[in-house]
């Protein structure tokens, strides 16, 4: 399945946006993972922002950045939101309040708890009535989301898809069941055909067990730990190829026995 990248957004420890990420890979700037962003996406109205979860703020910040780069109207984009854990902070609060002699769930927490909360807030903020899918595939949530986005495009259901993958570590004690290394969010505006501002072309193939190669890793040890420590950060090798304008094939593990092969080709000539 051939798809085109029109815009990118990214947010992680030591990575405040796509420009910072691009510089990190392209210019080999030093990486400092101790700097943690505190996103406040302007797309959310102030009253929603105040009570929004970390998951919503991280995912919408990346989504908003990708849409800005694409210079396209978000109302024309279908969306795919992929997360392994989803609203783990809200789940923690609900479980805390259920563990009492007078169990209660606040109505706000309840509607914030659904796996598609981030997608719902995005559609309200952007005004997009296009179809929206929220999914989960444990460690393969980035890969599962990318496949969903690619099939939406290749079957002509959508002309443009905003794909967001994101996961935020749960608070203690829930954290111990899924100790993610750090929060991470990554977003792409994807389409079928190259436009003047398009960044890259991706050709995606699902490989079965016996065709699998060793998965593409990050050379930088700390970034590779990040890649393995948050399902959304499994997309880092794709960002690396885009930042460095590489014509290359990337291999991402998908579920326990499959792999995605992503053939990456830059749309723009290298500026070097």
């Amino acid at each position, binding site marked *: 399945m051939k798809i085109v990248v029109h815009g990118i957004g990214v947010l992680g420890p030591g990575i405040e946006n796509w420009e910072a990420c691009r510089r990190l890979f392209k210019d080999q700037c030093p990486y400092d993972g101790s700097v943690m962003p505190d996103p406040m996406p302007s797309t959310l109205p102030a009253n929603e922002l105040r009570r929004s979860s970390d998951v919503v703020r991280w995912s919408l910040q990346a989504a908003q950045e990708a849409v800005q780069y694409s210079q396209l109207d978000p109302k024309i984009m279908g*969306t795919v939101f992929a997360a*392994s*854990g*989803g609203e783990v902070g809200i*789940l923690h609060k*609900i*479980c805390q309040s*259920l*563990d009492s002699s007078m*169990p*209660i*769930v*606040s*109505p706000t927490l*309840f*509607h*914030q*708890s*659904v*796996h*598609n*909360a981030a*997608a*719902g807030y995005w*559609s*309200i903020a*952007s*005004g*997009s*009535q*296009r*179809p*929206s*899918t*929220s*999914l*989960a*595939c*444990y460690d393969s*949530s980035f890969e*599962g989301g990318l*496949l*969903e986005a*690619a*099939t939406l495009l*290749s*079957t002509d*259901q959508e002309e443009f898809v905003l794909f967001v993958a994101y996961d935020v570590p749960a608070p203690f*004690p*829930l954290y*111990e*069941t*899924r100790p993610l290394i750090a929060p991470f969010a990554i977003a792409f505006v994807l389409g079928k055909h190259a436009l003047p501002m398009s960044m890259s072309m991706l050709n995606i193939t*699902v490989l*079965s*067990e016996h065709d699998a190669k060793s998965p593409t890793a990050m050379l930088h040890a700390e970034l590779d730990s990040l890649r393995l420590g948050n399902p959304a950060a499994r997309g880092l090798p794709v960002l690396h190829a885009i930042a460095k304008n590489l014509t290359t094939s990337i291999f991402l593990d*998908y*579920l326990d*026995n*499959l792999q995605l092969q992503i053939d990456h080709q830059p749309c723009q000539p290298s500026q070097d």
Partner: protein
Amino acid sequence: MGRVEGLEGVSLKSSLSHFTCRNNQLALLGLQQDGFEDRISKARRQYGAHRIGVLIGTSTAGILETEHAYQQKNPVTGRLPSTFVPVGRFTQDAFSVAHFIRQYLQLTGPAAVISTACSSSAKVFATASRYIEAGLCEAVVVGGVDSLCLTTLYGFSALQLTAPGPCRPCDANRDGLTIGEAAAFVFLEKSPVPDNQHSTALLGYGESSDAYHMSHPHPTGQGAILAMKGSLKSSSLSTSDIDYIHMHGTATVANDQTEDLAIAAMFQAHTPCSSTKGWTGHTLGAAGAVAVVLGDLCLQQGFLPGCLNTSTVDPTFSSQVLLQNREQPIRHIMSNFFGFGGNNCTLILGRR
């Protein structure tokens, strides 16, 4: 509420016992019905395990286990029980139900859990259809599994959306939904089985977002209309081809009212419609797959179900809501699903 009796006694075979939780017990019980497992074994030999996908809708997966674990926290350290922590991936995790089904049925194709609240297991049909069209799979096990948990029971109650008695969809005095639990599975293949005279087909689907409110439907049913229109377009059918509208019909004041407005805006008043939530309760993330299974039976038997428990249709409604069961041949059924976050999906089923 609609509770599946004896679910706690369902045991997973020892090699998969780490998946044990109410949601996966319900999934297993569902897979063991109506010769479904045998059909999948046959298909595995026909297509190969790697050519069959697994796409499951659920809203809460095994969150009941997490609720219990918090109730059993260590009072000193605040830590969750050591019996829960290592198996959280296989029970409470959102993907756990698809993971379990994939392993139980020995399938190795692409898989995902779709979780868009009450439209979850309708959306899996749309995704499965695209997977097949894009050549990722030859066939897909699609389904919905959602089990009772405190989060949904207390949550819907806090929103004042649960009825004190059995729910009454479209009734003038309807007073909320009845939560149920269910597992339902469908095997979706590219082409009809040649020797099967009774093959039901997914003829089309439409998806949309309300972009209005997290837990309240768009007041004029705009999102619902977009989903219904999308389903007609993708199946190349018009409103006059639809013989029965299987409503989302949760029996909350707002849902049924906006759904009626949306249907009335598109259809002539004589198209029969009803909700089956009075029969099954609202099975949330499983509602899509449950409705497809019921729809298949309606098509096979020429049966239109009336709204159970409803005595007087809301006089403000314009749609033709059925109160009594009716027998008549039907060609095409439209089924609606609307979830929190303003997530809508409409499916059209027909005979082939």
